[in-house]
């Protein structure tokens, strides 16, 4: 299961990525690579630049300098929907959802990238459009099952309890059939049992062949789930390695982990 780091070509290469907001350097000359099939986590204190990093990779904002290379091609300058079409999909830190849509409608909307019919074809309900709809329905059912959302398929998102919303966010991301799925704080606000279930879920997603990047504060979960971890502090990468290496890294302990011993349980 563990990817061999030297021989596999990487899926994502972040090269000297920098992003300034006025005088603030939110992401500062960061480089790392993510291999296919990995669970790669970015950790760091609040304001370290983790979410900004995700936005840069997903082409939601442009880097001040540096490059994001996905499957050998740069994503810089693309619109977010183009990055998504290449296979880079992120979920949101805020539980951003389509409030008025039901679970089923949401997932079917997220199936957009898989639709082969053109807009005009969809309008005229061509054979291709009907095939798309049938396929969307089938795939949506499959995803609802994976995330155990079947029993709320006709519930509007605004009426769903919080735990479900996060699953819904992931359901959407899966429907877009990403190659790289970026989850921003997927375990935030969960109790230990919920986190356990969510960790299992992320593993199942990876086992489907989707490479996963996480931003997460729950160190216990991070250490369990990650293949590799990068640590950001004030926009700079201060360490990268396996969970074990990170836990023993003096830089990391000084800058970050040290203050959070209790939370970590180490």
């Amino acid at each position, binding site marked *: 299961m563990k990817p061999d780091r030297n021989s596999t070509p990487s899926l994502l290469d972040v090269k000297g990525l920098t992003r300034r907001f006025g005088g603030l350097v939110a992401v500062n000359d960061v480089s790392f690579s993510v291999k296919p099939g990995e669970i790669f986590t970015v950790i760091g204190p609040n304001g370290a630049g983790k979410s900004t990093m995700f936005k840069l990779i*997903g082409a*939601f904002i442009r880097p001040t300098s540096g490059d994001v290379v996905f499957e050998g091609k740069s994503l810089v300058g693309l*619109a*977010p*929907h183009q990055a*998504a*079409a290449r296979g880079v*999909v*992120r*979920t*949101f830190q805020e539980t*951003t*959802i*389509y*409030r*008025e*849509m039901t679970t089923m*409608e949401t997932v*079917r*909307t*997220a199936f*957009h*990238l898989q*639709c082969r*019919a053109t*807009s005009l074809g*969809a*309008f*005229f*309900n061509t054979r291709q*459009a009907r095939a*798309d*709809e049938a396929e969307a329905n089938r795939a949506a059912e499959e995803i609802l099952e994976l995330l155990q959302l079947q029993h709320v398929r006709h519930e*509007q998102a605004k009426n769903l309890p919080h735990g479900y919303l996060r699953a819904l966010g992931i359901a*959407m*991301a899966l*429907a*877009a059939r990403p190659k790289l799925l970026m989850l921003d704080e997927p375990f935030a606000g969960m109790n230990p049992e919920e986190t356990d279930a969510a960790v299992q879920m992320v593993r199942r997603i990876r086992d489907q062949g989707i490479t996963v990047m996480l931003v997460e504060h729950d160190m216990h979960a991070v250490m369990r789930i990650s293949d590799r971890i990068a640590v950001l502090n004030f926009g700079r990468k201060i360490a990268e390695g396996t969970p074990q290496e990170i836990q023993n890294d003096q830089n990391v302990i000084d800058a970050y982990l040290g203050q959070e011993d209790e939370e970590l349980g180490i």
Partner: protein
Amino acid sequence: MNDTKSKLLAYVAFAVLYLVVVPLVFSGSPYALGVFSMSAALSVIALGVWVTFTIGRINLGQAAFALIGGFVAAICITRLGLSFWIALPVAGLVSAGVGVLLGLGILRLRGVYFAMITISLSEAVRLAILNGGSLTGGATGITGIPVPGELSLFGLVLIPDFASVNTHRAFYFLSAFLLLASILLVWRLMASRLGRVFASLQQGQELSQSLGINITKYRLIAFSVSCFLGGIGGAFFAAMQQSIYPGSFVVADSISFTLYCFLGGLAYVAGPIVGAFLLTIAFQLLHEFQQYQQLVYALLMIGIMMWLPNGLLSLRLPTFGGRGSASREVTRNEA
């Protein structure tokens, strides 16, 4: 299945009423037919506003596009000598084209900002036409537009010259055709993937982007359909009134179109139509109150917001189903 059957029956009954009974009963009353035709034209225009609602934009610029449609049709007919049957689609397409050009700039804006800029659009287009010199006729507009002539294909007369038949009834049928075609257009839009995409833009643009949806493209599609409907309605208006002025559609009309949508209910394709017919007919019946129209509209708007946030159709009239997945109950209903 029974439900579908009774629904179908209701649609058929409604179609018979609208297409057969009304024109027969009122065939001797040009005035009544005129009111119904006008209601249908306003419905078409308001339906456009409704479409922009589905992408989460309050469009207060529809008067501009009705005006553009009206003047393009009038210019095509009187200046270029084209048939109304060519001028009508040209008017819709020019409106849609202008909508795309403007939309590229303004559709980035949301909420009050979009509403404000579209209000100024209503005014800007009116002023542009007012200063359009001999092309638009300035303040006096374009008058004496001939009624639609015969439409024939390979010698087969499809539509007779309006002047040679009961003109008012002919306009009634034309308005009914345009309304039904517009409903069909919007219904197909909402029933397809596009309707879902529009709803997603209303509820979370960034999220839609991350799911690979080209939000610029779909916003433009929605807006151009809206402008197309505005243009078609305006062109019909010009033909029926046989005249069009810069003051034919003004900011107050833009607001009325929005009110029709609210009154009928944003969650229903039929919403703006119910609103347009009710208010247009009511004001014809209450003729003497005409001067208070704006006041009544304002009060009505406030009343709807407070007591009926999802419009009349939310009172569950079975006949007017047509509930697109597009804009379900709007967020105003949170309270």
